[in-house]
């Protein structure tokens, strides 16, 4: 069994090396900016205290609704809490929520797509029609339906966003698996005695998974937008939790006098999603795509 696995591992590593070198050659200026942004985000996830001296809930009564300054980079909110720290600490809730959403969509969607492609017949027809139905509902609306069904809260909002992306994953996985299934070498593997489950695990899944993975990075960006939209509307994380969409909605009342309360967390969302989208499209087609 080990002899069987070793060449596969070696080739995976070689292709990974090629991928990394290929990526480095493809990076443009904007890609480096995006990469730097993601590094800051990673720091915010792992060690938020490194990026800010203030706690996300620490209220500074002397500086309520203070404008951005050297001490409070992005100003303070109506309780005197530092906006920059709330954004830094809020990265965890938003990004973890999006990760949950992508995992839900990826796992359920891949399973359904593989099932549809390999089972065929009635199963395929039923899954495909359900996918059609789900795709006819705009994603944000579908997420709201699911969140009504599950109840409000940050985990439920994440699951809802995941459920609303299942159809997209299923469709891509199904069409990829169908293509791979009919390749000559996959058919040959079956003819020389490979059991269906072996062929599926050894050939169909690895060869059709790259399309689904590149879809995941795209869906991760969308998940961030939808989760923050849900919490902006008040269906997600409850206050006083620092969550990006919630920060925006808390700042709404002060838009006239203290616009940074709304603009700063919104910009954080936009930059994060942009960095992810930018790098995922660079990985696919090189940096001159725009």
């Amino acid at each position, binding site marked *: 069994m080990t002899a069987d696995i070793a060449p596969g591992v070696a080739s995976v590593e070689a292709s990974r090396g090629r991928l990394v070198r290929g990526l480095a050659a493809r990076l443009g200026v*904007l890609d480096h900016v995006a990469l730097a942004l993601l590094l800051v985000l990673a720091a915010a996830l792992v060690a938020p205290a490194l990026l800010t001296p203030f706690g996300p809930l620490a209220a500074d009564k002397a500086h309520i609704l203070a404008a951005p300054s050297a001490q409070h980079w992005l100003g303070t909110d109506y309780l005197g809490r530092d906006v920059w720290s709330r954004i830094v600490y809020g990265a965890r809730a938003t990004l973890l929520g999006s990760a949950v959403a992508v995992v839900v969509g990826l796992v359920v969607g891949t399973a359904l797509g593989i099932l549809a492609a390999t089972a065929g017949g009635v199963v395929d027809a039923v899954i495909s*029609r*359900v996918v*059609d*139905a*789900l795709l*006819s*509902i*705009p*994603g*944000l*609306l*579908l997420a*709201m*339906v*699911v*969140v*009504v*069904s*599950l*109840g409000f809260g940050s985990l439920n909002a994440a699951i809802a966003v995941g459920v609303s992306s299942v159809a*997209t994953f299923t*469709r*891509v996985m199904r*069409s990829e698996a169908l293509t791979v299934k009919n390749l000559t070498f996959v058919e040959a593997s079956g003819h020389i005695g490979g059991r269906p489950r072996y062929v599926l695990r050894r050939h169909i899944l690895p060869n059709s998974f790259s399309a689904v993975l590149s*879809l995941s990075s*795209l869906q991760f*960006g969308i998940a961030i*937008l939808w989760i*923050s*939209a849900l919490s*902006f*509307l*008040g*269906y997600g994380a409850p206050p006083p939790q620092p969550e990006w*969409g919630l920060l*925006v909605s808390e700042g709404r009342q002060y*838009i*006239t006098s203290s*616009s940074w309360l*709304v*603009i700063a967390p*919104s*910009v954080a*969302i*936009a930059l994060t*999603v*942009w960095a992810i*989208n*930018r790098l*995922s*499209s660079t990985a*696919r*087609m090189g940096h001159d*795509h*725009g």
Partner: protein
Amino acid sequence: MLSLGYMLRRALQSIAVMAIVYALTFLALFVLPGDPIENKISNPVNPLPQATADGLRAYYSTDQPAIVQFVLYLARLLHGDLGYSLTNGKSVAALVGQALAQTITLAALALAFTVLFALGIALVATFARSRLVRELARAVPVLSISAPSFLVGYVLIAVFSFRLGWVSSITDQGFVSLILPAVTLAFASSGSLAQVLIQGLSSARSQPFVTVLTAKGVAPSGIVVRHVLKNGAIPSMTLLALIVGDLLAGSVIVETVFNRTGLGYFTYTSVRDQDTPTIEAIVLLISAIYLSINLVTDLAYAAIDPRIALAAGGPRRGSARRRAEVPA
């Protein structure tokens, strides 16, 4: 020529998908979490008058099993009866109709802006003389699909309402008040359309017929407007249904940001109050709009290109939609 059989089959397919949408949302809203209707009616926080509560209970037959409620609701739906709101006991059809009427002008204007933005960006990105300008234009769609609509909305409010004082952010000034929300909606939805247009334009531009036209002495602007644009715009037609659906769903955020009432605001309050019959009606409405636009564009395609009607289903639909999701 479009065969009657194909049209009929596509129409039936849409109706079947609609039925699945109904069944799925019913499952999610009415069956999964206990008994939302009973919970809602007997909610002590927001008490309904006894007569209204009894009326709603009798109407939704909350004492019957879920499958009976499902059939009952479906039978009423087929007669055009969408039920009664759980928050105030009013007719859902009337409430949704009222909300849609307020949003339809906004959505139409936003659609016009979407096409305008996308076309402008795609033309600049493909045909601008300077390489830098082309590159900048190509970076815009990724930006627009990455920015949350509340960011765009609040920046517009901060600039045009507070700084310049051109538009009031509170009072409704008729058409003028529509412009900022429409721009906000259009900015978000123009991204994917611009990406598909850019791809369509650059592939149409390198077709042999362009060389032929140039050789024949047709002016470059004539080639672009009359030939390249026409060919490059075809794949983006399929995005139309998706964009309209997104505009209607996106109005949830935009109407909240701009303090407008309409379908988006109505969706927001219905979800907040867990008013399941109205949510069900909104989902059915938006999905019906999506499916009808899709049906019309598919049939239009088949009329233009008979090969599509011969190959069963709508193969163009899947491929164009998939392309749309890839930020280029």
